[in-house]
């Protein structure tokens, strides 16, 4: 069954809300992959700036380090951790796809299917990773011995 990749009959075009389609930009699988790769890449480089700066600040004394870690236990950082994981996962997996397409698999027949397969893998790994990330909080330590430092073996 042929599914048009671009133009008004494409699946992506139908799925997007109307305000995305007014700008004249043509959305199709490849452009979605490209936009997401660019957005996650920019987010990751800004994260690395923040990461290096906060570590530099925490290296002043052992107390400063503990204070930084204490701050990073808070809910806003948990959300950031999940976003970071999702961004890394997409950027990394799509990067593998780009290198495959550039160097190993130059036939264009299945490029679209390759991206959707990669996106599905990304979603599965994200869901699998969310379980430990969300459980890995310090709530009620007495009830969750396996999640304690030193536990979980």
């Amino acid at each position: 069954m042929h599914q048009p990749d671009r133009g008004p009959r494409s699946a992506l075009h139908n799925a997007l809300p109307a305000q995305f389609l007014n700008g004249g930009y043509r959305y199709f699988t490849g452009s979605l992959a490209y936009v997401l790769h660019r957005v996650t890449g920019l987010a990751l480089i800004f994260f690395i700036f923040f990461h290096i700066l906060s570590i530099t600040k925490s290296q002043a004394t052992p107390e400063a380090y503990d204070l930084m870690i204490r701050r990073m236990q808070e809910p806003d950082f948990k959300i950031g951790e999940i976003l970071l994981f999702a961004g890394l996962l997409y950027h990394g997996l799509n990067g593998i796809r780009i290198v495959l397409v550039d160097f190993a698999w130059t036939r264009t027949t299945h490029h679209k299917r390759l991206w959707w397969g990669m996106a599905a893998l990304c979603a599965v790994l994200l869901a699998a990773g969310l379980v430990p990330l969300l459980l890995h909080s310090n709530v009620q330590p007495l009830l969750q011995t396996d999640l304690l430092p030193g536990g979980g073996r």
Partner: protein
Amino acid sequence: MAEHYISTRAGQTQWVMQRVSAMLLLGFAALHFGLQHFTSDAVSTGLTVATRLNNPYWQAYYIVFIVLAMYHGINGVVGIVRDYNPRRGLRVGGEILLWSLAAFFVVLGLRNVVSPVPLGMVKESYAARGFAKGESPGNPPSLPMAYDFRDELRELALLEYYLEHHVHRTEGAPLTEVFAHKADVRLQALQPAEALAAVAASGAAFDAWAKGVIVNGPIDPALRRRLSAFSSSYEFAVWAAQVRVANARLRGDDTTIDRWYSTTSSFLLPSYRATDLH
């Protein structure tokens, strides 16, 4: 044939290097992120991080990682700038700015790796003040996530992690004999008082183990191993006893303090100095 289409114009090297650094970064980032986010909380404590940053193999790992990540990231932004086809002056100025930013952050990052806080200073700091209990400096203020390794159960869990991962064991007692609280802790759901008693009993068992190791005295220096955070069980026992006393003072636990500073026994707890024991 693919080679007919390879461009030899400006940007070719950056294009290839972006892919080479990407493939290397996959492994580096996966190991770093997995270690920091998918393993125990204890890998983020000051002691564990100081141990890693004072280890030459991990230092080499992070030097390569920082340089690769900053190259890949800034090269990617340079590519984005080029996509907009700016005027020549704007492009050259932007690239100079971006690579200066990269150099600045590489210098900052490498400084943290090449000259980390000395491990001895970190160990002495915890021996003096106990484990971390930060008052939340942020917003929202610490509602669902408590971070208190002075609580006796979490303190013991952390000591167990250190004994298992960061101590060059020079005595033979299995961990299950040193720490006894694990099986009883789930009682807390039904009988909090009994679980707290089980944790206190485990603390007493740990103190008895540590006291036995300290009484045996320092080991032959030839048997120590400097790459471990604690080069012998003796060093760890002295350090852990000081940490236990500091934590007990902060949570008002007189039983533990009396156990280490008993007036009736001749035992004297040595003070912890990292330089003495190495």
